[in-house]
């Protein structure tokens, strides 16, 4: 069966520090991968998606970047965090791009102080 992992589970970082959140998927090959941010009381905002190694599409301009160095690994990064980057970050995967149920990881709660 497929599983999706995210780490760390929680993170507290000072403004201006770098960020690296990792997501890995097991049990499937060539998944479509997604990064979402969820603010309290808000819906999920799609940040990035990837159809394959090295292929990243950005949905919104922001202080974040994403990379996919391996088929089942998706990384969310920032060089300098802003207060507004605080939120709950979710990684997800699907079989077909945008057209199927997406399976979500457990999320990372990021607090920028």
């Amino acid at each position: 069966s497929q599983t999706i992992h995210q780490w760390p589970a929680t993170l507290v970082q000072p403004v201006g520090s770098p960020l690296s959140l990792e997501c890995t998927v097991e049990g499937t090959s060539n998944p479509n991968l997604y990064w979402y941010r969820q603010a309290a009381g808000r819906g999920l905002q799609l940040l990035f998606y990837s159809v394959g190694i090295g292929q990243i599409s950005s949905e919104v301009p922001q202080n974040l970047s994403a990379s996919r160095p391996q088929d089942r690994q998706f990384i969310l990064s920032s060089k300098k965090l802003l207060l507004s980057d605080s939120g709950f970050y979710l990684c997800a995967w699907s079989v077909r791009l945008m057209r199927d149920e997406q399976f979500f990881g457990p999320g990372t709660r990021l607090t920028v102080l």
Partner: protein
Amino acid sequence: GESVGLHLPTLSVQEGDNSIINCAYSNSASDYFIWYKQESGKGPQFIIDIRSNMDKRQGQRVTVLLNKTVKHLSLQIAATQPGDSAVYFCAEDYNKLIFGAGTRLAVHP
């Protein structure tokens, strides 16, 4: 845990009652819809989906109804249990999944 669901509309029900959670979607061209359940501090979990060529789909204790005329989706949970307490949100597929903000379901014994 993550404070998902602050300031969300809340539906309070008694254990054993049926729950109906509603969702208005945006795009008449959307052809696929999903309901997710999100417990505090966790990622969303798939509950049930429906395609636009259907108006009703049933799962275990859950039913999704789709009214394309008024762009409305509902999730019915039968015999609601304390474990059903969570935030529920719908998603529509319009070139990408677009998620609603959600409704908090609170189940009281």
